[in-house]
């Protein structure tokens, strides 16, 4: 088990390092950041001074090692635009994105699993077919477009919910959160639902497929022959069995939810990390771009790692394999 753990952690580290090289070289290989930072009319001496200060005159690999060294000390550089340490900048936007992503995951889970269970329990019913149709839309229609529709219907036409922004926040444990107030909920509801749709479609499909498989298994037949009630059959056998793929997907999708938040945050003008990265790309704010990308990849890899470990805990067959 420990060998397995170490192997997985090493793999995760390799990925982060590889990605950091690609991102760093890729982002720094293009354009001239000095042009973004200073007034084109400023004199050559200032230019030289800045180039010196940021180390742009050194070879790329040296820049990379300096960057990595700084990063390990918690210094991810300074934004060219905001003139703030990148880490602080990104961390200040992190709660908004995390809040949005987690709310979206909760919506997807609490709608997706029951709907998928129903669709798998009564696969030939009309309602099951409607649910499956909805799930196809959920992951084939581009999410920014669904976001626009949501704004048009619920904000413009019906006027029930605000069209964007974050609304009032309360500070909880040093993080500003919306979900602590009712008004905050009115702001987060549309973007969270928008972000949830893809996951919702996926979860419905997965849950349905798992349910259909388990319901036709011999052990469900055996459980019914023991006189277990249908709710017990579903609650004990089906839920436990589908929990494995669902936890996997849930975990993996948490990472991609953070990535997809880029789109939702732009549509709903949600002041999170995603909005920050889009703004940074358009103005070529390299330190922010690099730090964001490396951070997201890091989060992603960590989540994959945790999912793998949980997976082993859930499925006794895998646990044995890993131990032997």
């Amino acid at each position, binding site marked *: 088990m420990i060998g397995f753990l170490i192997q997985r952690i090493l793999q995760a580290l390799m990925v982060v390092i590889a990605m950091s090289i690609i991102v760093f070289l890729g982002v720094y290989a293009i354009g001239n950041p000095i042009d973004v930072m200073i007034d084109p009319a400023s004199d050559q001496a200032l230019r030289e001074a800045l180039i010196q200060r940021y180390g742009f005159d050194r070879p790329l690999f040296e820049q990379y090692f300096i960057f990595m060294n700084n990063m390990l000390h918690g210094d991810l550089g300074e934004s060219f635009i905001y003139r703030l340490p990148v880490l602080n900048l990104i961390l200040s936007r992190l709660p908004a994105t995390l809040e949005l992503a987690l709310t979206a995951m909760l919506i997807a889970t609490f709608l997706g699993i029951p709907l998928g269970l129903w669709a798998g329990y009564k696969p030939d019913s009309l309602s099951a077919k409607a649910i499956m149709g909805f799930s196809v839309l959920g992951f084939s229609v581009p999410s920014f477009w669904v976001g626009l529709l949501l704004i048009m219907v619920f904000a413009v036409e019906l006027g029930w919910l605000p069209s964007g922004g974050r609304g009032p926040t309360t500070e909880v444990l040093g993080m500003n959160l919306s979900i602590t107030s009712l008004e905050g909920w009115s702001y987060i509801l549309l973007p969270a639902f928008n972000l949830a749709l893809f996951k919702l479609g996926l979860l419905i499909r997965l849950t349905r497929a798992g349910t259909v498989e388990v319901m036709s298994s011999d*052990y469900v037949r055996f459980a019914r*022959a023991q*006189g277990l009630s249908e709710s017990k059959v579903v609650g004990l056998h089906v839920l436990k*069995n589908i929990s*494995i793929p669902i936890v996997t997907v849930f975990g993996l999708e948490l990472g991609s939810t953070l990535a997809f938040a880029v789109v939702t945050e732009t549509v709903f003008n949600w002041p999170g990390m995603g909005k920050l990265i889009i703004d940074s790309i358009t103005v070529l704010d390299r330190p922010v771009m690099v730090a964001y990308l490396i951070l997201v990849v890091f989060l992603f890899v960590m989540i994959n790692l945790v999912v793998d470990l949980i997976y082993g805990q859930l*499925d006794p067959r895998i646990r*044995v394999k890993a131990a032997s």
Partner: protein
Amino acid sequence: MSDAVLRVNNLQTQFQTRAGALKAVDGVSFEVGRGRILGLVGESGSGKSVTGYSILGLIEPPGKIAGGEVLLNGKDITRLRGDAMRQVRGAQIAMVFQDPMMTLNPVLKIGTQMIAAVRAHDRVSRKAARARARDALAKVGIPSPDERLEAYPHQLSGGMRQRVAIAIALLHNPAVIIADEPTTALDVSIQGQILAEVRRLADETGTAFVWVTHDLAVVSSLADDICVMYAGRVVESGPADDVIASPRHPYTAGLLASVPAEHEPGTKLPQVPGSTPSLANLPQGCAFAPRCAKAGPACTTTPPVQHFEDGRTALCHYPIEPVSCQPLSLTSTTYRSAS
């Protein structure tokens, strides 16, 4: 036998298909008394397993019970629906399935599955349920039952798993246990242990067994009575010893002749020619006639149920004449009690 705990009367189970209704079970009748073991014998497709599922009301659409009755202690349970039927399943009639690899949920501990089975019928605490599960495991001869409760199915051998399944079936001291080919997937030596265990349980607890199998050798060593099924019908029934010693239906005779144990070594093993007919196009009259050496002109009409001495029956126009000789055994062992 008027003290039958389970009596099946003219049971009909059909499957709706595009080609029409397939009669998987077509007028099956039999009965089992307390503590007795009935062997329900037939090839695959003969309707023996469907009969077992029908008794528990576990037939799923497009299948349905189209007629007949299943009397449990005199009460017809085919009319029970929903929760009323659920309360019968597992409590009064339990079932054991063929493949012990598949009947236990691989991701749930044995204990979890057994506790759920106890609590499906009795409102007892988890702790009490666990104690009962433990006792049930001990009763079917599983060593260190406490440890087994903590195990996952894949940590047990096939024979152990089938014992667990039998223990689950025994949890509520049911009147009847339907066992659907429970030893087919096991090694012969394990099979022998389980058969002996089952015989002991039937004698001790008074539970009646319907033992569904294709294996005549198993039946001859275990069952008190035999029903032979062919194409959805019972073609022959009677006390096990008598039927094996002197079959009256040509199909039973053919099956018995093809059992190697009874056969002279070095000569060709006789087989029943042809194969089981498809339910979709059964021949007119006797379904076995095309494969039957004794078939005559009358066989194009539905054969009558012929009744013989000792409550034996055969569904045949031309039953075989009884042979009078010593009853013979297909295997050297017998698990039957001397009754």
